[in-house]
């Protein structure tokens, strides 16, 4: 069953917390991974790979650079779930 936007956001926030220590409730839809959350490119890729595992989606390299905000990632995952 496909996860809701809210479930994906919560799951993603957990992954961000695991990788960076950023509080899960700071991971909000409008936040930018780089500018607001200060996540560097290597941590971002680790989060992407872990998100692939967690949500059963494939996030290609060329798509990663389009994931500017948390909402971008949540939308990509919700619309590409298997």
């Amino acid at each position, binding site marked *: 069953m496909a996860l809701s936007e809210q479930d994906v956001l919560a799951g993603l926030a957990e992954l961000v917390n695991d990788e960076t220590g950023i509080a899960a409730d700071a991971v909000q839809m409008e936040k930018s991974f780089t500018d607001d959350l200060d996540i560097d490119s290597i941590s971002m*890729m680790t989060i992407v*790979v872990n998100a692939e595992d967690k949500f059963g989606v494939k996030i290609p390299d060329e798509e990663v650079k389009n994931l500017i905000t948390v909402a971008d990632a949540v939308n990509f995952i919700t619309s590409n779930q298997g």
Partner: protein
Amino acid sequence: MTNDEIAGPIESSDEWIRQRTGIVTRVRAPEGQSLMDMAVEASKEAIEKSGIDPSEIDAVILATISFPYATPSGATMLAAEVGAGDAAAYDISAACAGYCYGIAQADALIRSGNSKYVLVVGGEKLSDFISPTDRSISFLLGDGAGAAIVGPSDHPGISKTVWGSDGANWDKVGMTGSILDFRDGKTEWPTLVQEGQPVFRWAVWEMVKVAKEALEASGLAPEDLSALVTHQANMRIIDEFAKQLELPESVVVAKDIVETGNTSAASIPLAMHRLLAEGKVKSGGYALEIGFGAGLAYAAQVVELP
């Protein structure tokens, strides 16, 4: 060379570089010291430690991407410099996988009976091919050379190499232009450059699969290993690699990158040399070594430590 010395042109800082790469210093050859000077020095040390006479060397393999002549090879000059006489000699262009490619070839040459002793050298003077303003890879890079003598043994000291390439990603690590474009004034002096994010994903999650395959091919269990010696690309890669590989705590993870930087083909032998010199591993122990980089090319094998 410290982070402070190179941070200005990339608008960075010591803290930023340490956090993102784990590098505190990188070794750069002083003016006047060539790749060949470093390769000769490393080779002489390896020959002396092996106890053989250089005339017994049947083949000299130099893994490098920074020898400044397209031809002749650096290896022929190196063979003459170290007294290896008429040994077969050639260079390997497999970037950061080059040293492990060389070990694979030495292993095959000796097993086939073609050679008795093979000198394998990973050497780079990458500082000739960097841009002070490049934020993708230049600030990681260092210079150096490491060497090994591979010879016959009554028991296997090198496991079957697991190697390959992914040319579909040829452009992920490489040069800013060709030397022909430089000649024709279409580009600045070509320097090294990479796409960090996709390379990071490949270097960790794809290469961990290769490392596991190599360990399985060796017939050894994870707890039989003394050390993991990955290409010293970036500490973040090394840390994530070790985490994903889930080796026992008894396995020492080589982290020469902290002081030496990323020296491409030289990084694995230099990292192994440091582990041995600091007494963190013992001669006779087993190390899983894996090189990966531009090509994309990769190779992994388990070796008995010299």
